[in-house]
């Protein structure tokens, strides 16, 4: 049962736009989502040492969407995720989360604190704390930040691990797990805070294809069963074509393409995207 099943579907106006929004940069909201806009970024800019990483990026995600973000290294994908996660503040622009403006006028607003717990993030590597077992990894934050009782935290940890098929590893040390198992536990750990959005930064890049497929399958189930939105930086085109609602292609700090997987992989007229997809597929 979707957590967000009561939310209104996309408007007919949006649905009509579906066919037209193909390979243009995305000033308008994404249109294939299953519900209302969850995250909206407008005019995001970020530079490191005078090098522009994000150039006026406009980006939207709907509740329950899986958005796959692709692009070459240094094109701005991870910086966008980090900006949405609050790990990096943009130089300029505006971010709205669940209807609340959380970043504007070059600083965070007071609403940032209230919504930041609704965003989870899973990283490429070093995802679990190696000096703790799986249970402690799962329950540390709820116990320390929300004062949750140990028994309640354990129950919730078991439920979250069950969702990712890792319940039998609850007392394992994180160092005893394989790469794919660690990433699944990391996803479950993010679920402990009941996020509406999970950001995944190349979480499968260090995994073998079958293991990566298992991890990505977990994300697909979270979207389908819990209505959690997922923004995923990946080079797994098979997953992008099967499970993504939107494919966003970054090029030189800008969103060059924001469209559906079908349009991105089969009817795309953007030469940079074609070149990238061909290279990754090869």
């Amino acid at each position, binding site marked *: 049962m979707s957590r967000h099943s009561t939310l209104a579907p996309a408007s007919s106006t949006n649905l009509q736009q579906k066919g037209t929004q193909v390979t243009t940069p995305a000033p308008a909201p994404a249109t294939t989502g299953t519900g209302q806009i969850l995250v909206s970024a407008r005019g995001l800019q970020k530079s490191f040492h005078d090098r522009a990483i994000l150039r006026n990026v406009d980006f939207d995600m709907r509740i329950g969407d899986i958005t796959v973000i692709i692009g070459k290294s240094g094109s701005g994908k991870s910086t966008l995720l980090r900006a949405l996660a609050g790990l990096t503040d943009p130089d300029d622009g505006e971010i709205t989360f669940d209807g609340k403006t959380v970043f504007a006028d070059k600083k965070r607003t007071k609403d940032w604190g209230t919504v930041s717990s609704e965003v989870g993030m899973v990283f490429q590597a070093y995802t679990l704390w190696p*000096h703790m077992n799986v249970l402690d990894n799962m329950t540390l934050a709820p116990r320390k930040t929300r004062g949750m009782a140990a028994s309640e935290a354990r129950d919730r940890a078991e439920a979250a691990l069950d969702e990712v098929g890792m319940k039998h590893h609850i007392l394992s040390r994180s160092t*005893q797990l394989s790469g794919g198992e660690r990433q699944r536990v990391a996803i479950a750990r993010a679920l402990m805070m009941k996020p509406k959005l999970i950001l995944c930064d190349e979480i499968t890049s260090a995994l073998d294809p079958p293991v990566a497929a298992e991890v990505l399958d977990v994300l697909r189930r979270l979207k389908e069963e819990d209505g959690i939105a997922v923004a995923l930086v990946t080079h797994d085109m098979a997953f992008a074509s099967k499970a993504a609602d939107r494919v966003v292609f970054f090029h030189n700090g800008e969103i060059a393409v924001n469209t559906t997987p079908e349009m991105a992989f089969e009817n795309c007229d953007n030469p940079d995207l074609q070149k990238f997809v061909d290279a990754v597929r090869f």
Partner: protein
Amino acid sequence: MNGYTFDWDVVARALPSMIQGLGITLQITVITIVISMILAIPVAVGRMSKIEVIRWTAQGYIEIFRCTPLLVQLFWIFYALPALTGVTLPGYASAVIALTANLTAFMAETYRSGFQSVPVEQVEAGRMLQLSRFQQLRYIIVPQAMRQQLPVILSLNISLFKDTALVSTIAVADLMFISNTISAQNYRALEIFTLAAFIYFAIAFPVSLITSAIERRMQNTAGPGFKPGPSLLARMMPGTKVAAAKVPA
């Protein structure tokens, strides 16, 4: 053996006094280690500060004590500081201050490299889970940094224990001072200093074994996917090509 005749009776007579000296040695060692391990934390944090004045001050302190001989530091505090301040410190206090200042500098660098060895993603994971800065330090950074640097910390402490012998030069009645005195009185340097060496060894060797065991255990429990970080040498000398530690298959 050069016709030398051992006199083990002198060892039996000297032992009680030497054990007393060992007491002073251990006292100075423990006090120095405890104070240094605490003081090194703010120095290490200062060394990583974004505020240049704080960072340079911490780094200046560390470099001064790392790049001058401990004996010079000891003499400076015992002989030179009174000339500067007019305050004469007893030998025991001078010894503790000099050893503490020296060990703190080395310990701070060890802490710093330990803190910096914790992958930033793990700290960011804590941030994403709403842990406060103190909670990130308490539950994520310090446990891993200490675990990572425990062998280095124990090695520093072993070195400090041996370096306490230098305090005999400013008339602190430690094990070395007592040994030297008894040796001079009895002309039995071989027996006395052999016994002194044995006592130092008997204390330091078990700690050294523990250090090695901890290192082995850390490597064996690293688990699949563990990537050994750069060695301490590589971290202390950026740009130096030093092979990472080998991980058992």
